[in-house]
């Protein structure tokens, strides 16, 4: 029975275009206990990691999602007619990480931190739906305030905002950079 449940969950993750959360799986599979579901998911993840396969189940933005493996990128691009996924421009990335760490934040605050007007970068991020407007700040002028989206997490393969580079990781990079210079 649990084995069968594993298959059901596999098909649910498969038909989902967005990361499928554990809560969502539980809400669909009302016939099964939470324990049964969690066990089945573990079995499923186990079977994907232990067998050599062309596709994998990844965990991002708080859910499970099917995706290809990095090594097959060249052939997939060939199949999809050279379609490539473009990386973010340096200024868009800088703006995005400021929003990620300082959210909720206004455009003026972003520009102040960066020392440059960031309208253009913000527009790119809004259009890519990596950030969203979440309201207005209770301050003079009532400026719009921004946050990162679920899509932002999925874009970088993060499970939650807690997965953002930590202070320690950042310090490590800074130390490495200093080492290179001296």
């Amino acid at each position, binding site marked *: 029975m649990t084995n069968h449940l594993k298959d059901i969950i596999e098909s649910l993750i498969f*038909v989902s*275009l*967005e990361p499928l959360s554990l809560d969502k799986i539980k809400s669909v599979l009302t016939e099964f206990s939470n324990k049964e579901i969690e066990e089945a998911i573990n079995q499923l993840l186990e079977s994907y990691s232990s067998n050599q396969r062309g596709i*994998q189940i*990844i965990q991002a933005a708080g859910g499970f*999602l*099917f*995706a*290809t*493996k*990095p090594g097959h*990128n060249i052939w*997939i691009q060939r199949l999809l007619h050279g379609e490539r*996924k473009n*990386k*973010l421009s*340096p*200024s868009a*990335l*800088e703006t*995005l*990480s*400021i929003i*990620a*760490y300082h959210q909720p934040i206004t455009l003026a605050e972003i520009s102040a*931190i*960066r*020392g*440059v*007007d960031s309208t253009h970068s913000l527009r790119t991020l*809004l259009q890519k*739906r990596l950030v*969203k*407007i*979440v309201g207005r700040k209770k301050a003079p002028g009532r400026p*719009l305030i921004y946050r990162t*989206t*679920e*899509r932002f997490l999925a*874009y*970088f*393969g*993060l499970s939650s905002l807690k997965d*953002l*580079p930590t202070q320690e*990781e*950042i310090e490590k*990079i*800074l130390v490495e*950079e200093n080492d*290179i*210079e*001296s």
Partner: protein
Amino acid sequence: METQKSYQVQLDVFQGPLDLLLFLIRKKKIDIHDIPIATITKEYLKYLNNKEKINLEREAEFLLIATLLIYIKSQMLLPREKVLEDDDDPRQILVNRLLDHQKIKAACHILREKEQNQLKIWQRTSYPPQVKTDEIELTEISLFNLTEAFFSLMKKKQKENIKILEGKKYSIEDKMKEIINILNENSFLDFSTYFTQQDSIEEALISFFSLLELIRAKLVIAVQESLFHPIKVWLLEEK
């Protein structure tokens, strides 16, 4: 690393004035906490001078930091009665900004690596053909999507309706006759095509109301196979 680049790099390679400042500090192997303001101000101005023309709009921020540097320099030159506290030290503001900026740069570095890994893996962008869905779903809707949808539509409308025929009056009755005539000649009418052929917003509105009237009178039927498919209008056969 940026430090390997020649001195003559363009301002464009820097994301902003803090980037440039950080570059100069690293180039001189200076500790951020202990910036020799005179030296670094000189370097910074020399750098700006190397640009033949300063694009004020683009580089105003670079000049702003230059001003700040000169201000700090002048403050340092003034004789003081007592040693400055950390909070009063004009350098401290700049140092804090630079430290924050440096952290963001490092975070970007890590995020860039994560992005590179993610770009190599692919997810499906639509359901496999097997699964039938009659609606394309939006993943996350923010206020921006909402307003963008509205204003894009308005813009499209403005462009479409440049022809305004003065003095021409449309009546619902005439339009109803026109629609019936079209339906008698053709098996059906594609409403969006018909709508876009109208000369003005007024005429389009009248057409729309006429169609609603015809539907209410059960003379025609409007059918949409599924969402986003064109609306087709058919003459109702009398039974």
